[in-house]
């Protein structure tokens, strides 16, 4: 047995992977989609959202942070896990203030796309309608915390890709918010609209101004194809 390959199964399918990968990376490589929200290729995993929960030998773990290992038995595409993921998505909807019909990222929003893929017809938990601040101080971009899912992608992208450290988290639990590392909002930072942190936001929380509603309905990324199809359809060269 080669030391450079581990073999394990996902939903009974045999998967081979380099030993230094996470379950999610190994699955991506062979065209198996594990739903995820806070994970983004090219960023270190955050492990915040739990949407990528799979079972390893019967125990729930984050696929985006859990390393592959020889012989592990991974469950991914099961109704039990989908229902858990659906609950997480539903909570994100009712904890935020998401008015999709008037949102400029509808159709390309990953939160919405996950709801569609998991066939969540509508959230039914009670809405919180929590007060969340909008930061429109910057000339080119705005931050609408009403639509934030606290995935932390902007935080990580700003640090690791832009080398800037514009964003952070403040408070804990239900009062947690994304914060801006300045005294006077986004205009007081060195953030630009072309920064990587601007393009990684999965929702309509961090948005470039004056660019909304450019793609017609029917042509938007998730209008016809579920999120994850780009992984499932990719050619597998093993």
């Amino acid at each position, binding site marked *: 047995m080669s030391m450079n390959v581990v073999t394990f199964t996902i939903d009974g399918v045999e998967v081979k992977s380099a030993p230094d990968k996470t379950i999610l990376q190994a699955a991506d490589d062979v065209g198996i989609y594990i739903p995820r929200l806070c994970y983004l290729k090219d960023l270190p995993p955050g492990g915040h959202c739990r949407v990528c929960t799979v079972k390893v030998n019967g125990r729930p773990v984050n696929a985006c942070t859990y390393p592959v290992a020889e012989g592990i038995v991974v469950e991914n595409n099961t109704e039990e896990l989908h229902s858990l993921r659906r609950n997480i998505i539903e909570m994100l909807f009712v904890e935020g203030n998401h008015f999709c019909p008037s949102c400029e990222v509808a159709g390309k929003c990953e939160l919405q796309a996950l709801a*569609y893929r998991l066939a969540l*017809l509508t959230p039914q938990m009670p*809405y919180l309608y929590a*007060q969340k601040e909008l930061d429109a101080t910057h000339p080119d971009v705005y931050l609408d915390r009403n639509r934030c899912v606290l995935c932390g992608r902007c935080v990580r992208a700003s640090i690791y890709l832009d080398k800037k450290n514009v964003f952070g988290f403040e408070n804990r639990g239900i009062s947690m918010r994304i914060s801006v590392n300045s005294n006077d909002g986004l205009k007081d930072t060195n953030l630009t609209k072309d920064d990587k942190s601007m393009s990684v936001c999965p929702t309509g929380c961090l948005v470039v101004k004056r660019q909304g509603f450019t793609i017609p309905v029917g042509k938007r990324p998730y209008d016809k194809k579920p999120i994850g199809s780009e992984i499932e359809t990719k050619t597998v060269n093993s």
Partner: protein
Amino acid sequence: MSKPVVATAHFTGCFGCHMSILDIDERILDLVELVEFNKSPINDIKNFTKPVDIGIIEGGISNDENAEILMEFRKHCKILVAIGACALTGGVPSMRNLVPLKECLEEAYLNGPTVKSENTGIIPNDPDIPVLLDKVYPCHEVVKIDYFLPGCPPTADTIWNALVALLKGEPLNLDYELIKYD
């Protein structure tokens, strides 16, 4: 055999969902063959005259009249189907839920930039006008809803497929493209 009876209601919405019902185009001819319409803004029948098989609800619940009629629908209809973002989540009208009702009314009738004369604006308070609730509520928070059709509005195909499935007693499975929140 008598035809299944359908009723529809419009609450706090824009009538776009009813427009989408009419948007089934020539299939509307099949529909009138298949079902009989009872209370609905489409035919202007004001009161229920018989038990209803399927009640279709557009719009969220923002005032006492909405709530009363929705409860009446629940009483008269075997199956209640909520259609559209407004009925399912409160939709665009529920954006007011982020602002206390008193402030909303004061902005609209007393302090807003389009209120003309100073000190003379009044907040309408006629007994004939429905009383606004503190928030706009999704229908399922007021009565039990049996089926949800998302969209703003749901497409004519969504509504048609759902109606046909319900009339045939088949399970309601929406294709991926028909599940939309906008």
